[in-house]
């Protein structure tokens, strides 16, 4: 048994994707923790931007929502909702966007809208929020998710936001400014797009077998020739998460 939870595994691997100086459009929960972990390790100059209109937040407590007052006090700037989407995101001032969603397909397209028919929904999900624009305009998009067949279906019920559409060429032709879905971090490993834009298994976490990843993916998952093994969470990363960032284990205790 590993001595870390799957939520910790996801958060730590997400933090490692972030670079010093990145301007990150952050969500609540694990992405928020990943950004704070990166800031305390290898990316002290990472800038956190929240879609509620907060730039350079330094939250003193864990925010439950992306509009928490702790994000405002001590921030660099606060602007309107129109400004955050127009001046920051559409203008190309966001490096990284963290995505969420119920379904993701092999080309990194996401459904956050509906299960079943749109007009007669079986399950109505919250909808786009900012994800339609983040997916199109952030330089790099990442997604953290448990690795299950339900999350990775062969076909989406609804395409809320664009990954590589039906392949990298189609995204290029659509002339979107951002680079698209560049990594999906799961509790089993890492998926990254190949030349065609298809998500392939590029790394496994320690102790995970290739078959587990394939069995839990709804499409015929390709495996990279040089499959890597991610470095196990380090003691220091776990200490920062557990002692400083989420001492009550609100987000990190359970499985992702």
């Amino acid at each position: 048994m590993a001595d870390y939870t799957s939520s910790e595994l996801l958060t730590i691997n997400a933090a490692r994707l972030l670079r010093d100086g990145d301007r990150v459009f952050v969500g609540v929960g694990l992405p928020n923790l990943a950004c704070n972990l990166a800031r305390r390790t290898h990316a002290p100059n990472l800038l956190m931007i929240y879609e509620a209109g907060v730039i350079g937040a330094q939250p003193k407590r864990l925010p439950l929502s992306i509009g928490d007052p702790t994000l405002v006090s001590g921030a660099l700037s606060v602007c309107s909702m129109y400004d955050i989407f127009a001046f920051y995101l559409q203008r190309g001032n966001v490096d990284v966007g963290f995505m969420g969603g119920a379904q993701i397909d092999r080309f990194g397209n996401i459904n956050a809208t509906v299960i079943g028919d749109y007009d007669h929904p079986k399950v109505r999900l919250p909808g786009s929020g900012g994800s339609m624009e983040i997916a199109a305009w952030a330089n790099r998009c990442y997604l953290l998710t448990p690795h299950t067949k339900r999350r990775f279906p062969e076909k989406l019920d609804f395409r809320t936001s664009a990954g590589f559409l039906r392949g990298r060429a189609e995204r290029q032709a659509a002339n979107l400014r951002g680079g698209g879905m560049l990594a999906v971090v799961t509790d089993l490993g890492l998926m990254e797009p190949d030349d065609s834009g298809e998500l392939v298994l590029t790394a496994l976490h320690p102790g995970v077998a290739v078959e587990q990843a394939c069995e839990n993916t709804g499409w015929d998952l390709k495996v990279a020739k040089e499959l890597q093994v991610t470095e196990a969470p380090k003691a220091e990363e776990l200490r920062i998460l557990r002692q400083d960032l989420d001492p009550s284990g609100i987000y990190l205790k359970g499985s992702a």
Partner: protein
Amino acid sequence: MSKVIPLAQAVQQFVRDGDLVYAAGFTHLIPFGVGHEIIRQRKHDLILARATPDLIYDQMVAAGCARKVIFSYMGNPGVGSLRLVRSEIEAGRLEWEEYSHFGMISRLQAGATGLPFMPMNPTAAGDLERVNSNYRTVKDPYSGGDVVVVPALKPDVAVVHVQRADADGNAHIWGIIGEQKEAAFAAARVILTAEEIVDEAIIRSDPNRTLIPGFIVDAVCQVPYCAHPSYTQGYYDRDNNFYLKWDEISSNRETTQSYLDEWVYGVCDRSEYWQKLGTEAHKRLMVASQTSAPVDYGKY
């Protein structure tokens, strides 16, 4: 000229059955006190527009005020599903019209600035544009490329809560400023509620903080704690416990109805609601002071 009137009178006078209502506030300053007054006055057939319907529209939909919702993110922020709006939509009992956040806010921006529509760069996702014919793609007349456009949103009435305003409705807002200004300028009528009504001199001492000028405001109501369980930056905290608790309350019709009976129909106004919350809640939501450095406008 003073526009200060009691909230009940403002709702009676300025919210009409069938109106398109925009109760502003991105997580911050959500005017729950006004939502509850609209429920008490049993307004109906409203079209409720908000980027995030939040608990305020969940409650108004549960109370039967709405025939339609317009939104861009229908969740309980940080908690999960917005159960009542969701179940009404799934049951086919509530009309809806849906955008992304940028689409929604661009509609308001067009309404607020007197434009017929607003352009946005394409996102190529496609499906939302396919199911909502308000999204159109047109040619940029300069480059020949595509831009996506959405039409102006012009609410019949906007409801905006602020930290402080003078009697004429000149309003100071700070913290997350979401879409209050846009909603107020886009709407035909504006109800402004404030934690504090202050002297005009206070407003004039810091004119850059005035996001809403009094001349577009119809009614000014002093409603302390209007935003609970949302919050007012610097005045009281967001009641995250209640947002979590609402997930249970709204999980069935009986508990939802008894919540409305006790906390909306069962109190006469916001002041009684706040007293009823009790000292434990008041203490929990108190916030310590952290003031900004003063700015010097200079004497000219």
